[in-house]
């Protein structure tokens, strides 16, 4: 397992991402309307998918933590939020760059981009909260609550922003799906998945080590009870 994470996963990531992007940049045909700019899709869309997946992992870990306390789910929630924030931010940046030649502006108040921006601010708040609470137990509970509330908010934000925009004009992002675009997208997405898992595993180890440094883990009850010690030493003697 450790060996796979150390060597196999990075190799898999590089291989899949490299292959997928090569397919996307050189092999796939340019889009009929957007031309070569459409090739941004092979980096933008997998980023968005992985950001969503990471946020979903964060949500599940938070719910699991509230149902049964464990430092592992707390550490997983923290790592998923950070990795999700990274992927989401990159997804938003690439989306904005893509928007420039397509719509003529970087920021179009497209419902998807807007919702994502709001989501990213919410998860920044989540990570800041974690920084500002010293007691590890309180931090875990409170951040789990914030994560759950933030995840519930996502669909509401999505609907409200779409409504809000639809009063002006509907922004249709043209997506003519050529079969030759599907393969590179798929390969790049799996590559991105491998990368996310890789980041997640390493971040999780860091988070768990931090928890270890902060708390004597619950399993480790104090044992140097003087009475107990006396009993043991007498047994030995």
């Amino acid at each position, binding site marked *: 397992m450790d060996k796979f994470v150390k060597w196999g996963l990075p190799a898999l990531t590089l291989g899949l991402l490299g292959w997928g992007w090569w397919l996307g940049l050189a092999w796939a045909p340019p889009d009929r309307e957007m031309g070569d700019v459409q090739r941004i899709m092979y980096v933008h869309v997998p980023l968005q998918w992985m950001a969503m997946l990471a946020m979903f992992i964060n949500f599940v870990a938070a719910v699991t933590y509230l149902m049964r306390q464990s430092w592992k789910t707390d550490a997983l929630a923290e790592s998923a939020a950070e990795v999700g924030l990274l992927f989401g931010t990159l997804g938003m940046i690439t989306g904005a760059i893509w928007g420039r030649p397509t719509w003529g502006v970087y920021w179009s108040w497209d419902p998807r981009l807007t919702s994502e921006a709001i*989501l990213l601010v919410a998860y920044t708040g989540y990570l800041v909260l974690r920084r500002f*609470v010293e007691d590890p137990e309180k931090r875990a509970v409170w951040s789990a609550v914030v994560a*759950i*509330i933030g995840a519930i908010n996502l669909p509401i934000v999505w609907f*409200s922003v779409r409504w809000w925009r639809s009063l002006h004009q509907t922004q249709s992002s043209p997506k003519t799906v050529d079969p030759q675009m599907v393969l590179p997208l798929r390969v790049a997405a799996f590559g991105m998945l491998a990368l996310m898992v890789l980041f997640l595993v390493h971040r999780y180890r860091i988070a768990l080590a931090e928890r270890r440094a902060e708390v004597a883990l619950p399993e480790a009850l104090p044992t140097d009870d003087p009475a107990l010690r006396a009993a043991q030493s007498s047994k030995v003697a």
Partner: protein
Amino acid sequence: MRKTRPLSLLKTTLVLIRKDLLIEWRTRARLNALVFFAMATLLLFSFALGPDTKLLERNAGGYLWLAILFASVLSLGESFRVETENACLDGVRLAPADARAIFLSKALGNALLLLALGVVLVPVMVALYGVRIVTGFGDLASILVLGSLALSAPGTVYAAISSHARARDVLLPLLLFPLVIPALLSAAKGTTLVLQGDPMQQLGSWQGLLLGFNLIYWGVGFVLFPRVIED
């Protein structure tokens, strides 16, 4: 032994709201400051945008709700500062008062405060921005009520959390603002429709969105708040 009887959830909530309102009344100087803060915010919007009355008129609803939102951050923070001062929240929950009743009382009390603030701000807005209430006071009242409730339910949960964290004054808005964007959006849109007429019958859907937001977050707060304040 003294005769006591356990109160129902509703009764406990009412006792606690009464206590919170009593505190607000006894510290009404703070309350006044809050109202003037919100008014100053409204006034500053008109300075920031210059004397373009058309622009002010068109965006009046948004400015009203931004002013209420900024004020809500202060009042939410204050409502939990009172409780942390002598660990009063511990005193209340050990009394014992049901943690869910504490949530309901705090959220309702804050909603009431925001509603009152809104009622005071509306005439100021009418005077400053030169708007008229077109579709009727009933519509405006419903938006004010739903909007205040929508800000205060998640706000109460987050204020309880941030009141125990470091840098709570920064943390509360950072957590709250992205969360209440749907509520802010629908309340502002709804108010704008009330002020400028609603030829396409859109007000109902914004009210519906606000109602849904309220149902979700009052439910979530009711369930999760005990986890926030109990050890």
